[in-house]
């Protein structure tokens, strides 16, 4: 009976799939920041709770959450700087990061072309671009600006040329440019600014105006009103909510339009300009203010707000009306015709639990407490229009996970799965139910395999989705999934290894509060496990050529206690060797279980291995469904040259590190043959047969294990049939 590596069923532990299709014992982990000889010892000093790597532009950024602080790694200086944390940690930005250990959504990161979004459940989200860190978007509303306009009591005078606001009173003045201040500290506008631009003009319809005078030029200015609002802009382009509208500014009806009164025969002279003061200054990373204004509310036909451009032509660098966070007065001579871009009306950014990037937008779930999902404006990860939301679950269940796929955005509650897709016109998002019985219980357990299949952890175990109905894939390891600590399983974290293409999910088992066992799915229906890292609270894969899988939590060096840190899986550094003692284990599964009513006797096992080291395997035999070995270590004395279990073939021993001589040779004294040492590939071989003992068994199972480097390629078991048939006792 032949068992290949992808078919050994009962248990594969601390083994990793190789590119050649074998299983090899895992190695490492290594501290991300290695302890080199002579260097100062570094201690994290608190629980390392999460880790994230991103490439922003050409920069690599490694973030870790340690206790109640967010750290950024500082490269070769072998240090971390505190980006977020309490004042006592001297952070770049003071913030409160919950660290009470209660089961809650894990901290989540998403990388965008501009920087990293940091979602900390229980507090507000942040954004870090590699240089600046700040709150994501705005969680407060600006105050409204104050309006200033021409004095309506003097409506018979020119409202135009020579009319200006002063910095002294913030009020409007009129009078021709004289170069002098008038008695009210008003100063006429310089002629070089030309005519004012605001106001609705109309052709005079009669021959006499209302006051009986003539209007030989035929122009009138209609009564008009305008309102404005303020909006902050941060350094990443996010917009704050609009302020409430200002009071209105107005101008009166003017029909006495004569050249004598206005010093010109241009009807433009009837127009006015206005001013807005007390423009609120923004918090944090605010770099500009957008002034929003209505068109003439009485005549334009719309009461909507529009963005006031900073100058006549806009321009590529015009990101806001006021490109600063200092000034509070804006003389506004922008005509209604220049108000082209309708103002956005974002909502304040609340705290959320889950997020995902999809269709160029940031989707967030569980704003405050309800199960609402909102999406940001494209490319503006902290700007959420008030209208852009949906409740995927009409019953209002909280969102427990989000994950972008090529088919849409998967959104989970505990018991349901939904998919959000973009409408054909790209302007709306549609929600559809994928499953009403499968949900997700751990938001960070979701990952996409290279095949495109999405895997996640639900109430009943692991599920896979490929566009149809979610399928439970972990039925074969139900006894294991039943040991998950459901109270803390929300902390489970997962990632896909780039080399082995395995899905790895760390879950808390056997009552643990933090994830302490890695469950591995190879994408072909096979499950393995590993416990080389004692605690894994966070995991990520570096987005550079190294493709490291990095974990946050605890690992242990042999002879030491487990220590907190940031770890690189499947890699080694000399300062952290040997790692904690652990066996790489392969079990065959119960042989002959479907014919267990017929007794049989296991007599031998042949193991196909790949030579790895000058050592020996250990092997155990279990019978009759009991996981108590009836024969520990089937192998005999290690000094027996012919005994089975050697991790290389004794007939063709490889060169061993430490004894082989570079450019040397070896001499076989019996054959009198000298062989030159050359580089070779490690070869596969068949071990000598292991003796199964021939005991009677309904079913039996072999276990191979080794505490060290061990590469497995398959086994063949041999047995003697003890059962009786109608023709007598047979053996085979």
């Amino acid at each position, binding site marked *: 009976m032949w068992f290949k590596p992808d078919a050994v069923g009962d248990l594969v532990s601390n083994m990793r799939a190789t590119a050649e299709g074998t299983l090899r014992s895992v*190695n490492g982990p*290594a501290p991300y920041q*290695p302890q080199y000889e002579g260097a100062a010892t570094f201690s994290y000093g608190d629980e390392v709770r999460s880790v994230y790597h991103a490439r922003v532009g050409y920069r690599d950024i*490694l973030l870790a959450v340690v206790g109640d602080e967010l750290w950024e*790694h500082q490269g070769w*200086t072998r240090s971390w700087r505190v980006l977020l944390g309490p004042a006592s940690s001297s952070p770049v930005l003071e913030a409160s990061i919950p660290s009470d250990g209660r089961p809650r959504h894990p901290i989540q990161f998403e990388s965008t072309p501009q920087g990293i979004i940091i979602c900390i459940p229980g507090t507000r989200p942040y954004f870090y671009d590699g240089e600046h860190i700040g709150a994501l978007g705005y969680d407060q509303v600006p105050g409204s600006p104050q309006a200033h306009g021409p004095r309506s009591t003097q409506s018979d005078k020119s409202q135009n040329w020579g009319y200006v606001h002063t910095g002294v009173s913030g009020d409007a003045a009129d009078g021709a440019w004289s170069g002098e201040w008038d008695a009210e500290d008003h100063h006429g506008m310089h002629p070089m600014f030309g005519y004012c631009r605001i106001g609705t003009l109309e052709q005079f319809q009669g021959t006499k105006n209302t006051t009986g005078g003539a209007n030989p030029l035929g122009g009138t200015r209609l009564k008009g009103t305008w309102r404005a609002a303020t909006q902050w802009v941060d350094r990443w382009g996010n917009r704050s909510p609009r302020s409430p509208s200002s009071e209105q500014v107005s101008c009166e009806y003017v029909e006495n339009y004569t050249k004598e009164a206005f010093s010109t025969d241009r009807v433009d002279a009837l127009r006015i300009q206005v001013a807005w003061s007390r423009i609120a200054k923004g918090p944090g990373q605010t770099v500009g203010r957008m002034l929003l204004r209505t068109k003439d509310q009485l005549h334009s036909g719309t009461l909507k707000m529009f963005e006031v451009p900073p100058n006549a032509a806009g321009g590529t660098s015009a990101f806001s009306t006021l490109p600063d966070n200092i000034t509070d007065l804006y003389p506004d001579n922008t005509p209604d015709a220049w108000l082209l871009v309708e103002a956005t009306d974002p909502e304040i950014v609340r705290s959320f639990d889950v997020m995902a990037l999809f269709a160029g937008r940031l989707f967030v779930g569980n704003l405050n407490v309800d199960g609402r999902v909102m999406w940001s404006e494209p490319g503006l990860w902290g700007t959420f229009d008030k209208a852009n939301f949906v409740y995927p679950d009409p019953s209002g269940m909280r969102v427990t996970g989000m994950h972008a796929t090529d088919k849409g955005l998967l959104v989970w509650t505990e018991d349901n799965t939904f998919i959000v897709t973009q409408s054909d016109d790209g302007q709306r998002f549609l929600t559809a139910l994928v499953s009403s019985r499968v949900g997700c219980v751990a938001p960070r357990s979701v990952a996409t395999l290279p095949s495109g299949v999405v895997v996640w952890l639900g109430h009943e175990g692991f599920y896979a989705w490929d566009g149809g109905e979610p399928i439970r894939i972990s039925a074969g390891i139900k006894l294991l999934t039943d040991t998950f600590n459901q109270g803390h399983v929300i902390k489970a974290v997962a990632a896909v290894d780039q080399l082995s293409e395995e899905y790895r999910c760390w879950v808390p088992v056997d009552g643990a509060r933090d994830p302490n066992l890695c469950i591995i799915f190879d994408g072909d229906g096979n499950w393995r496990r590993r416990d080389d890292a004692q605690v894994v609270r966070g995991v990520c894969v570096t987005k550079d050529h190294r493709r490291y899988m990095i974990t946050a939590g605890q690992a242990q060096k042999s002879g030491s206690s487990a220590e907190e840190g940031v770890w690189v899986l499947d890699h080694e550094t000399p300062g952290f060797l040997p790692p904690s003692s652990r066996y790489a284990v392969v079990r065959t599964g119960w042989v002959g279980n479907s014919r267990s009513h017929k007794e049989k006797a296991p007599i031998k096992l042949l193991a196909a291995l790949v030579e790895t080291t000058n050592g020996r395997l250990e092997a155990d035999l279990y019978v009759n469904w009991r996981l108590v070995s009836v024969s520990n270590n089937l192998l005999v004395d290690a000094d027996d040259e012919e005994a089975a279990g050697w991790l290389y073939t004794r007939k063709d021993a490889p060169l061993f590190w*430490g*004894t082989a001589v570079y450019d040397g040779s070896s001499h076989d004294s019996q054959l009198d043959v000298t062989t030159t040492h050359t580089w070779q*590939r490690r070869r596969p071989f068949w071990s000598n047969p292991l003796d199964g003992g021939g005991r009677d068994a309904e079913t039996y199972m072999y276990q191979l294990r080794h505490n060290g480097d061990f590469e497995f390629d398959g086994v063949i078991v041999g047995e003697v049939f003890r059962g009786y048939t109608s023709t007598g006792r047979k053996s085979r």
Partner: protein
Amino acid sequence: MSWRHPERTLKDDSAIDAEDTNRAFKPFVDELSGRLNEHNFAANAFQDDDLADDLAIRTGQEGVYVDAREGTGSLAPGPGYWGYDADIMDVPTSAVWAPVDDLVKVIEVPDGGAMMEVTFSCQTMGYSHSDGPHMQLGIEVDGTVVEEIVNGSTDISSEGQGFWLGGAGVLVPMQVTAIVELGEGTHTIQAVVRNFHPEQQGGSSSTGSGAPPLRRFSHMGSRELILMERAR
């Protein structure tokens, strides 16, 4: 050396395998191939004391600094002229490359050779806008000028206009850069220059009463030779 995380460290009694060994060295090869990232370098990572251990770029420099505005406030066109700075170099008309004073570097290249970026930059100085410098700059490696990178034209009509500084002189900055590959051994890197202007034959003209005669040569003021080698 930066941080490295080999997949498997080489341990005694491990079966020697070409592939395992290659993977153990891969982080080092990646690094030597320039696949450096934020975690290998950081701002202020290099301190003077660390350079011997953590060397990545080796540099060499030779230079002369001349402040043409010192003293008289007027550019000095030649030796003997008032305000003349002794570090100013005459560049007489000649089709032969002349070594630039003080801009020579002798280097030792170890096994494996070196690839080096050599930059020669200078301020050329002429007498007036019409008698401006008409120079060619070059870099000579072991006595041979690297022809491909010679900078400056022999067409006098296209040069020498503008760049006034001071009352009488013309300053024109020029630069030439070469990437040279050097074998093991000793090598001499020399900055060279030549001047094609037909009227700059060493003649003289009056500078007014009491002043020494002018020689209408071109000159070279501040100049620098920079060598940059990527090394391990």
